[in-house]
């Protein structure tokens, strides 16, 4: 089967989001908007299982 690079692209997108939310989180912390900080942190944490699922799907189907 031809392997797919879609999961790779998705993972790169997830990583990009990670970077964005990390930066947002740190800035909101110093602006003392603590609720926003927590929201960004939670999103960052949730992105990890998402990345893992993408990886799982990606290797099983295509290798």
């Amino acid at each position, binding site marked *: 089967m031809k392997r797919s690079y879609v999961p790779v692209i998705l993972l790169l997108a*997830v990583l990009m989001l990670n970077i964005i939310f*990390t930066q947002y989180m740190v800035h909101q912390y110093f602006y003392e908007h*603590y*609720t926003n900080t927590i929201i960004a942190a*939670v999103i960052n944490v949730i992105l990890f299982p*998402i990345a893992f699922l993408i990886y799982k799907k990606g290797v099983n189907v295509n290798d």
Partner: protein
Amino acid sequence: MAYKNNKIPFDEDNYTHNINRNNERKLDRRGFMKTLVGAAGVFAVSSLPWGAMAAKELAGLGDKKYPKHKITAVKSIAIGDAVDFAFPGEHDSAILIRLSENKYVAYQNACTHLRCPVFWKKDEGEMLCPCHHGKFDVETGAPIAGPPRRPLPEIHVKVENGAVYAVGVKRYEA
């Protein structure tokens, strides 16, 4: 006695000859995706302390608690007058100003320039530092003239049973 023949068993310049993994030098698609997932994990884990710190601030644990301190009786301070007091420590001199019937403001009165005591100029309605003529806005403590660049630290006050109390110091904001 141990016998030594001083011979090297075989010629080698590769000290990892016993480590063998297939394709160990190859970064394939799968390995790359593993790296990406790992990076996502690192981001997730490193977000946790920030979340925890933010939660702590939200829960109010970041504010230092000081025992409340009676400044003066309401009766003995007329509207437009000021009294000096010390809060939170006995050497942290501070000033309380009664702006109207129910509005009181208090600041730590060490000038944010070189710590001269700031006083309240009633007829001009501003706080003045005599040393280099720094002026502060009485409503907010913000510097409005002269050398000081940072606001005076505000003290939270509360009126209770006919007396004015200092209850806390506002967090310093850069």
